């Protein structure tokens, strides 16, 4: 694998994570439990679309075969997507969405905090902008997990269920493959494994305040680095890509 190929795949992964989570969050539009949260979730979705545009646009440029951010987003199939599976998990109830957001945004806060110093200038610039956003996402989601965890019996039960259900999808975020190793050596990427302890400490602190039990050792789902996904991604893509696929000659 050349440095260019690795950089393309790395950027694509960053873009896919943003794109797929933004699609999920945008599904909340008009479904929020209060208007303020409806707006907050679509606001996060907007941040993530902006990030997806930046990374997918850069990936298209690196690839250099005439793709654009839009063809990368709307014309690839399931097996060509490299987002972590956690991003594509269905929204579930509001508690599920906040738990998923906490797991992802807390990871991203650590990730982008280091990527600010990437030797790749584009990645460093996008990371600097993104960091401000994900800090807010992480704290907003953390606040809700605490509120719901320490709210009523029902909300506590729902959040604990969400934590147990989503937990097996958390470790994949920290998986390293050849792409990562090559780019870590170049000073472009981040050693994801090195972020895990800080991430888990942060989650443990939130859970303690939320009176939520940390799940025990369990099997951790994996596959997205090879383009293997949950069954949910195909449905998400068929909805998202509908117009582009149905009218391939049209420009929107």
């Amino acid at each position: 694998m050349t440095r260019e190929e690795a950089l393309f795949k790395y950027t694509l992964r960053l873009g896919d994570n943003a794109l797929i989570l933004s699609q999920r969050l945008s599904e909340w539009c008009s479904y929020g439990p209060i208007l303020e949260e409806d707006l907050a979730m679509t606001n996060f979705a907007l941040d993530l679309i902006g990030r997806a545009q930046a990374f997918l646009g850069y990936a298209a440029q690196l690839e250099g075969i005439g793709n654009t951010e839009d063809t990368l987003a709307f014309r690839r199939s399931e097996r060509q997507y490299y987002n972590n599976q956690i991003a594509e998990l269905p929204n579930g109830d509001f508690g599920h969405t906040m738990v998923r957001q906490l797991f992802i945004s807390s990871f991203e806060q650590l990730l982008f905090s280091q990527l600010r110093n990437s030797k790749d200038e584009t990645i460093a610039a996008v990371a600097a902008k993104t960091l401000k956003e994900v800090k807010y996402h992480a704290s907003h989601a953390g606040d809700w997990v605490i509120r719901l965890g320490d709210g009523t019996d029902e909300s506590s039960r729902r959040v604990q269920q969400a934590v147990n259900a989503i937990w097996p999808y958390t470790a994949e975020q920290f998986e390293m493959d050849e792409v990562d190793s090559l780019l870590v050596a170049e000073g472009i990427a981040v050693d994801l494994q090195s972020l895990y302890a800080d991430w888990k400490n942060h989650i443990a602190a939130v859970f303690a305040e939320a009176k939520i039990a940390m799940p025990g050792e369990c099997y951790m789902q994996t596959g997205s680095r090879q383009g293997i996904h949950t069954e949910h991604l195909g449905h998400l893509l068929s909805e998202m890509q509908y117009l582009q696929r149905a009218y391939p000659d049209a420009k929107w």
Partner: protein
Amino acid sequence: MGNDQSTMVAPDELLARFDARTAAGDAIEAKDWMPDAYRKHLVRQMSQHAHSEVIGMQPEGNWVTRAPSLRAKQILLAKIQDEGGHGLYLYSAAETLGISRDEMIHQLHSGKAKYSNIFNYPTLNWADIGAIGWLVDGAAIVNQVSLQRTSYGPYSRAMVRICKEESFHQRQGYEIMTYMMRGTAEQREMAQDAMNRWWWPSLMMFGPHDGDSPHSADAFKWKIKRHTNDELRQKFIDKTVPQAELIGLKVPDADLKWNEEKQSYTYGKINWDEFHRVINGNGPCNKQRMEHHIKVHNDGAWVREAATAYKNKQNAQKTNLN
């Protein structure tokens, strides 16, 4: 809600002063004395306006997950977010009149409060998103520009702020239509189809002809309303028809003609039977929109209860510490 003055002055005198102030074009503020009928009229109008912004998120939200490009998705989401924000802003403005948001939502669910009839129509293809921005927001702007000078201060200020964002919405809607009219035959067909379905309901947004409009007399006297339904409708038509022609869209009105003498368009007969049928609950989406809002509200109850319970626990803890 009256101030100290109101306890000392006779009701007739208060009303006379109020009438004089509105006649002189003064802004009425939340703490000012106002007749019950004025307050009721405003609560009805402002809560309807707020509900419209919120219910309007449904037909537009219907295309968020299927928007055909990242940019289109971004613009649509931002627009819907603006609408939701307008809803919040208007709920707060209405709360200055002594009604809570919960109460307003309850009135929406019970059918006592209405929302704009236009959102009882479905969004069936992507061009509908263009048509909503261009025609529906276009019609709303004409109405809202006029409301910027409405006599109730909080409402008037809300309108000033909202109008700025709505003009951006209208431009993005027109941009979608323009792109589609420049596109493939299928895209042009979608655009014309959307035009055909949204044109007449957009004209109905201004309400019945002036002779048939309830609620109007007091609204004019108190300067809540400053232009008649027909004046505003005419303004919208005169502004919009040339925009349609410019991009090759046909206005679905065989009787539409330019009147050189009046320097405006004459237009065909509006189907008021349809208007009343939809207002009375038998539009394509009335039940769907209301069931959606009620279901989401009920499904979210556990979240709101948890937030309240958590807040109470925190407050209790603070009290114990003190």
